[in-house]
């Protein structure tokens, strides 16, 4: 039963399931490094998904009406831009409310998650009922473009190539973004400044850093990255289809990975794949009853809690969340 093919199949599924989480986690890490605890990430990822669907649908629909075949590269560009626009807009709302108006970050974040899921279901549902065939839509051309395999590597390296080079390009983009963010935070001046903003905004301010600008940029770019997770989910994982609520609790899982990975983007890569694996492990272990499957689905959250307990007990300074995470910054005034 546990053949090599079976195992590699599981690894591939873990990576596929881990990729939306990786986008979400890296986006949230970048956001949290600026001291903003954006609990709106699940909503932002949801919006990233539906915006991509709407963009892709509009393009494919226009092509259909005009009677031409959609061009793959345009499919990707349109869906990508639509997704980035949608998720960045929600992140901008979050930024405006928490940074400029100094509203409570937890409340705003949770509200935006509710709003994002609601908006997604509203537009998704409308799309399905107006244009859906048999109550469902599939963006065939767009999805095909997103799922395109790496031409040469995928079929020349045997099982290895089939497992690791057969994904759509967003899987690799996720890893590249994680590595870039890691180097950005560790090795650049701007990254150093950003970390200072999240640790001690008053110090950053006194050092001449524009705290609000940094917070805005980190939150919006982080939101855009997280939105890509939603886009990957709808275009690649769901083959260009939309179901209301289909994204599930992946957004929360992404936030759990931020803690699990101790706010390090490089660690988030493997963590996301582990979580992706745990997320689907229940269907890979045969002969499980319904309740046992539910228990296995809980594993990622239980693991996160255990990590959290260990990290707080060890108290290593480098492993703690950014010191001013969740706090609005007021410049001292009399």
């Amino acid at each position, binding site marked *: 039963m546990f053949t090599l093919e079976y195992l590699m199949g599981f690894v591939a599924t873990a990576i596929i399931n881990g990729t939306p989480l990786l986008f979400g986690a890296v986006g949230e890490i970048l956001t949290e490094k600026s001291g903003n605890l954006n609990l709106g990430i699940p909503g932002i990822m949801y919006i990233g998904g539906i915006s991509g669907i709407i963009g892709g649908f509009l393009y494919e629909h226009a092509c259909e009406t005009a009677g031409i075949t959609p061009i793959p590269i345009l499919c990707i560009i349109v869906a990508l831009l639509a997704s980035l626009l949608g998720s960045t807009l929600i992140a901008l709302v979050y930024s405006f409310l928490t940074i400029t108006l100094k509203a409570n970050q937890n409340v705003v974040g949770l509200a935006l998650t509710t709003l994002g899921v609601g908006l997604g279901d509203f537009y998704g549902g409308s799309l399905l009922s107006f244009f859906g065939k048999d109550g469902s839509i599939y963006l065939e051309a767009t999805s095909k473009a997103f799922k395109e395999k790496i031409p040469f590597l995928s079929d020349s390296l045997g099982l290895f190539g089939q497992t690791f080079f057969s994904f759509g390009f967003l899987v690799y983009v996720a890893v590249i973004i994680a590595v870039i963010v890691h180097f950005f935070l560790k090795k650049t001046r701007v990254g*150093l400044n950003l970390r200072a903003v999240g640790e*001690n905004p008053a*110090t950053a301010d*006194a050092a001449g850093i524009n705290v609000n600008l940094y917070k805005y940029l980190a939150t919006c770019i982080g939101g855009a990255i997280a939105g890509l997770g939603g886009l990957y989910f709808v275009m690649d994982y769901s083959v260009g289809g939309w179901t209301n609520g289909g994204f599930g609790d992946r957004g929360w899982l992404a936030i759990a990975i931020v803690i699990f990975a101790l706010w390090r983007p490089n660690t988030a890569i493997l963590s996301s794949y582990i979580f992706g694996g745990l997320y689907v492990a229940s269907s890979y272990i045969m002969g499980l009853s319904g309740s046992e499957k539910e228990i296995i689905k809980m594993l990622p959250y239980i693991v996160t809690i255990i990590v959290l307990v260990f990290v707080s007990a060890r*108290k290593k300074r480098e492993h703690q969340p950014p010191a001013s995470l969740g706090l609005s910054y007021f410049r001292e005034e009399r």
Partner: protein
Amino acid sequence: MNNVAIELRGITKCFGSVVANSNVNLKVYKGEILSLLGENGSGKTTLMNMISGIYHPDQGHILVNGKEVVINSPHDAFEYKIGMIHQHFKLVDLFSAAENVVLGLDGEGRFKLDEIEKQVLEISNKYGFNIDPKKKIYDMSVSEKQTVEIIKVLYRGADILILDEPTAVLTPQETQKLFDILRRMRADGKAIIIITHKLHEVLELSDKVAVLRRGEYIGTVNTAEATEESLTEMMVGKKVELNINRPEPVNPTERLRVMNIDCKNRDGVKLLDNVSFSVNAGEILGIAGIAGSGQRELLEAIAGLQKLDSGSIIYNNPKTGAEEELRDKSPLQIRELGVRLSFVPEDRLGMGLVGNMGVVDNMMLRSYRRGKSIFLERKGPTELANRIIQELEVVTPSAETPVRRLSGGNVQKVLLGREISSSPTLLMAAYPVRGLDINSSYLIYDLLNEQKKKGVAVIFVGEDLDVLIDLCDKILVIGGGCVSDVIDARSTTKNEIGYLMTNTKKGRRASDE
């Protein structure tokens, strides 16, 4: 004229209806150290914040090197080569010294931390600092953190340095080291402004002294022509007797005996290590030590707020003559034993008083359990509140005004007044004059002396060694949770205390390793 580094002309700043600075004129030359002297609330820090770009003056001009400038942000201040070293350090704990130094700078080319570390070392060698650029801030002592702050502004090329109460947290030895460095910078042609209210430091270090009083500029004098008395007169506006009374203790008997107490924090680090001492009735025992050496834990242990791992705390009840064990008892149990203990904690509005309640309600924190009815009895506390306001000259609109709206000195008077009113037999006060002006400080010293004369055993935790030496009978020096020594305040010197603060018996062994 070319040698004027920075000049202020007619600077005025108001916060709402409060005038923080009015018509201040100041001139600092290159290669000169100017002390800015004034009591708390006299507008020293506000003035300096205007130079460093945090506030903007309502009126007046700032001239740097003879040219008028507008400083809108800390960033602008760097451009004009002005660097401020704040009293509360602006450092990111998680970063290394070098990372903090380079924070917020736009550099050319690739970001190479090892090169910055090299430059930090160069500056460090030039002025005689001693710093490891790779060391994380959270591993540093207060004096090291200050060094990083100074290097930070030097790295930015500052020619005008402003230091806000730099010696408040340093031991006498560290202070001397800092002064040597400042003198070297002066020789290097830098203009230095140092904000302080320690008169002897002003006289020792600076070339000129500028005095502010309640936001108003009083004048600038050459240090060589000034004395402590003349400066105080300028600062306060009237002659102040600068001598602290020290009545001879009458018939001292042992009131409290602390024996071999130990306590650890959650990480297992020892906060108190085998501490033993005793306090006599009718005496003031001073406790000296670098901030965070276990003073707080020691007082809290006696007050029943800190769990101990071993040892015992024995109280001799002067009424019954009985010996009571205070260890592992709650504050309520301690009171029920008949121990009349008063505690003025360091954190006045956090542990001592409730900021949002008025003076009367704060009095009731001590007495609300009395009375048989389920309703509170307010008459007694109201009388007490009014008596304290009158006798201690507390400035407050009414006895019901939330105490957080009172100034630091008045808050302290309310707290000390309440604690003394319960006629204690043991009084513990932690940093009771911190943040208070000269007049209020002397009032507090008088109150403590009054208690001493009544036969109360007083424990006084202080940071100003001059005051400790003048006020106390004995001084317990604590370092890293260990007792270094208990010395006679009448025959000791500041240097001896400073040495003991940093060189405990334990500490010496640790540093040899």
